[in-house]
Structures are given as C-alpha cells and as structure tokens.
C-alpha cells in the first residue's frame, strides 16, 4: 500500500478570523492507536472532524492510503472505512444491541426484509470475539439497560462490524466509572486486534497514555508535540500538559510579545526525549 492510512499535509482551517488549525502535518498508520491530547479549543475536534469529513480543510491536502482525496464529506469518509463514534454514541435507547449494531445497515433481502437470524449470529460472533459479553448482557439486551461503558462498547462494536480501517473515538471515557473506562480501553485494544486503527480523543491523560502507541498533542491549532508511548511516562505526560497550559498563561499575559513557536519549546528536562514539532 502506498502511504499511511490517513495523512494530513499542511492542513489549515479557520472559522471566520480564528485559526482553528494551522499547517498540520499528521499521519495515522494501519492498526495504530493514536491518542490526541489538547486543551479545550486546542483544535482537537476540528482536526477529527476534518478526518471524518464533517469539515473540509481551507488549505492543505488529505491523503487516504496514499491517494489524495477531493470533495471529502462524512458519507465518503464512511465509505473509505473511517467510522466516528461521537459523544452521543448514536444509539437508540429502547432497541436491543443487535438492532443498534446494524442500525441503518441491516442485513436484509432486496425487498427489505431483515434477516434477523443472521444479524443475531453475526452480532453474537462479534461480541464474543471482542469479549463484549457478560451474564447480564446479551445481544438481545435493550440499550437502556446497559451501563455507560457497555453503551460505548456497542458503538465501538458497530464500527468494528463494518471493518473500519480507522475508528475515531470522541471522549469515549468521559463520565464513565473506573471499571467502565477500563472496559472501553479494552475494546480499543480489541479493535486494533480486529485490524482497525484508532484515533482516541480524551481529556484523561492516563487513559490516553495507557491505550496509545503514539501520543499527539495539539495546542492552539498546531501540533505541539508527538511521541511514542515508550518515550514518556503518564506522569511525565501530565507534567508536559501542565507546562503547555502554563505556556499559554504566559502567552495570555504577554500577548503578541511571544510567538507561537517560542511557546512550543517546553521548559522541561525531558525535551531531548521528545520530537518537538
């Protein structure tokens, strides 16, 4: 295959006079889990929405498997194997797990009759494979009876069923308990074993660190740093994020006196272990 799964080259996006993203270069590889970290307003969601086709970039190019894409939109992103699990998870509460997995993409005859037996078998096989079963939960369970972690699992299972090359998870562990978060992180690992790459967006540095192969930090519309998981510990990552936040405070105080490039040089003894953008 020519080139990485998804590659952004010199991508910029602005809303009105505000630069949301500036000259972003980022590549996501097959079966790789990438954690995207950054403060509110750093540009995380703009970046993911460009990949998922919700926004189109003002400048720069997007390549999928080495091919430049034109007229990018959400429907085409899905066709190209990019599935996004938004925070609302797009689940129908009163329907069962099977219906939700196949929502809008039922296994049906040409006349539209649903092959319920095959859907159940396929759903069961998938759920067993990813370890997404328990005594209280079956494919016939109604979503409203599931925990937050299980709901996230249904949404992830849905993207896995359709053999997504890339699954984008937007804040999947927000508002979840410790054990439920752990379940979700396990699903992420399973998704990779099933052959998907995952872009994991979270405010939780420890979740991001635990699950990732690579960590990408976005700050004020730029990629501030990216590093392999083995190059940094979760504690060091926390310090790094705090330093970034302080850098911003300095910037806010001094205004235009500090340029963006200067603030991305993080005052830390770990600098040599990171590749700074």
């Amino acid at each position: 295959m020519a080139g990485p799964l998804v590659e952004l080259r010199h991508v910029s996006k602005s809303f009105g006079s505000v630069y949301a993203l500036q000259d972003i270069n980022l590549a996501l590889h097959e079966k790789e889990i990438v954690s995207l970290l950054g403060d509110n307003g750093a540009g995380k969601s703009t970046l993911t929405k460009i990949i998922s086709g919700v926004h189109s970039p003002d400048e720069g190019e997007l390549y999928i498997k080495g091919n430049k894409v034109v007229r990018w939109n959400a429907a085409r992103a899905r066709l190209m194997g990019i599935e996004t699990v938004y925070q609302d998870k797009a689940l129908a509460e009163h329907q069962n797990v099977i219906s939700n997995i196949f929502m809008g993409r039922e296994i049906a005859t040409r006349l539209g009759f649903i092959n319920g037996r095959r859907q159940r078998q396929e759903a069961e096989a998938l759920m067993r494979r990813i370890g997404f079963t328990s005594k209280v939960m079956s494919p016939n369970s109604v979503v409203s009876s599931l925990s937050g972690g299980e709901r996230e699992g249904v949404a992830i299972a849905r993207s896995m069923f359709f053999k997504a090359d890339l699954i984008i998870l937007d804040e999947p562990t927000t508002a979840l308990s410790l054990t439920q978060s752990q379940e979700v992180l396990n699903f992420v690992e399973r998704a990779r074993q099933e052959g998907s790459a995952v872009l994991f967006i979270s405010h939780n540095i420890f979740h991001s660190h635990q699950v990732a192969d690579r960590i990408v930090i976005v700050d004020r519309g730029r990629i501030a740093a990216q590093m392999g998981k083995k190059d940094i510990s979760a504690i060091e990552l926390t310090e790094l994020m705090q330093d970034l936040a302080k850098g911003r405070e300095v910037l806010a105080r001094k205004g235009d006196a500090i340029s963006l490039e200067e603030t991305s040089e993080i005052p830390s003894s770990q600098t040599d272990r990171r590749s700074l953008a």
Partner: protein
Amino acid sequence: MITDQKAPPQEQLTRRPRGVVSFLAQHRELASALAFFVLMMLVFTIASPSVWLNSLSYTAVFVSLPIYIILVVPLVFVVVAGEIDLSFASVVGVAALVFSELVLVGWNPYLCLVLAILAGGVAGLINGILVAYFGLSALIVTLGMNFFWRGFIQIITNGTGAPLAFLENTSFHNVFVGQVGIIPVQMLWAAGFAILGIVLFTYHKFGAYVRFVGDNSQSAQEMGINVRLVKVVSFVYVGLASGLVGVLAILINNNFYPTVGDGYLLTVLAAIFVGGTPGIGGIGTVAGGIIGAFTVGFIESGIVAAGLTGYWTQFIYGIVIVLSLVTHRLYSPHHKT
C-alpha cells in the same frame, strides 16, 4: 486485555428461550394486553353467559371490529415514530365521500375504491409533509386537518347523506362486506391487513426504521436513515388505511353520511394505548394494538349484554383504559419512568 474466559460458552449465548410462555415473557406489553382482554371477556361472560357463549354475538361485533383493526395497525407505526395523527377520522370521511360521489355517477366501484384509498393516501401525504418537512407539531397539524377535512365534507355535501343501497348484493359488496359462514368478510380483510402490518413492523426495515426514528431521530439520521421519509411514509400508511375504512364503513351501512368516521378517533387511539404502545417514541406493538382493538370493540356489546344501558359505555371505557394502563405500568419495563 479481556481473556476469552470471560465470554460465556457459545450455546449459552445462542440459546433463545422458546414456547408461548417465554414469548409472552419477552413481549410483556403484548402479554398484559392479552391478559387484560381475556379478563374482560371473562367478566362479560360471567355477567351474561347466554350472550357470550353464543357465536352470533361475536359475528355482530366482527362487523365493525375490522374498522378498528385497520386503523390501529398503521397508527401504531406513527405513534412509535414519535408522532400522532388525529386527522384519520375525517380522512375516513373524505375517502367515503370520494367513493360515494363517484359510484353514484356510475363509475366502476372497484375503481372508486382505489381512488378513495388514494385520496386517503394524499391526505396522509399532506400530514407527513407538514410534519416532517415543515417541522410542525403533528398533534396540532393533524388536529387542524381533522377540522379541515370534516368541514370540507360538510361544505361539499351541504350536510346531507346519500343512499348506497343499490350496491347491496352486488359482487363488489359481497367481496368486501359480505359474509362467509358466520364470519363477516371484512374481518378477513382486516386479518390480512393485520398480518401485513405485523410483518412490516417486526421483520421489515421499515418497521425497524420507524422504531429508530421514534427512539432517537438524531442517531437515526447519523446512521444514514432518511428520518423525514420514514415519517412521511408512516402518515401515508395511515391515510391509505383510512381510505379503505371509509369505503368499508359506508358499505356496511349502505349509506354515505357526512359524519362517517367521527366516532373512531378516540376509540382507535384508546385501542393503541390499551394495546401496550405507551406513546413514547421507539416503543410499541402492532399485535398488541390489534388486541387493544378487540378490547375496545367488545366493550360496548359487553356492557349492553350485561344489562347496563348504553349510557354506561363511556364510563366503562374510561375505567378500562385507565386500568389497562395501570396493568402495563406494573408489568412492562418500558412503562416505568
């Protein structure tokens, strides 16, 4: 990492309980609607055994019951889609008007039937477009359309009826409202219509989409379902059924009258709720609605047979509806808040 030990063995997952008891356990709304109907008929039979142990009493009820069934089936789709249609009673009248006007000038009755059903479909299409594309409240729009169509009928007919006795004993009449043995033919049409509705609701994408749309229309949209189209089709379905009912109703009476359909509104809605469709989008049962239609259809005859005057009817309706909702609330997880 989750190990495979956590996953239950295959047979445990795939084994699905079978048999009537477990079916009813999985479909609690249906079960409680059925239980309520059986209980009610038991009370009626104890009150007047001579009536309810005689099959002719059932024949009498089966003359008008089909009308409730045919209206209930598509209305469940609309209610499950998270909407409501209060205009079908007048749409029944419009279809009846179309049929009687055309058949009176000598058109082929089968053609007139088709046109009457289509007229109902157009009325449903208008409702659907106003709700789905103009984003108007279904409750208010269809209430308005109910007045509109009834007024339309009154203006066209000057409030007068039209005799259709000349159709009696024609093959057309016998095909739709004749009698096979002790069963009125319209009951067979209703049975076919009901089976079609249950199949659509349970096994077809349309039924699934209706549930998704009513449950969470934003999610349905995100997953690529055409939410507006699903709503419009549901309203058209009600319209087409109302068209069929309009013709059946005047054939049964051998007479067109400008208020035809008026009495169906509240009873049909009651049948849906009695049948276990709670009126929360995404949840409902067509089969239960049909049982609800039976419940509602038998109440009046049951009351009169029990020796009470017709004045008791509405009072007992009220009791039955409230009691059945309490039953659902107690036995169905969906009805809990």
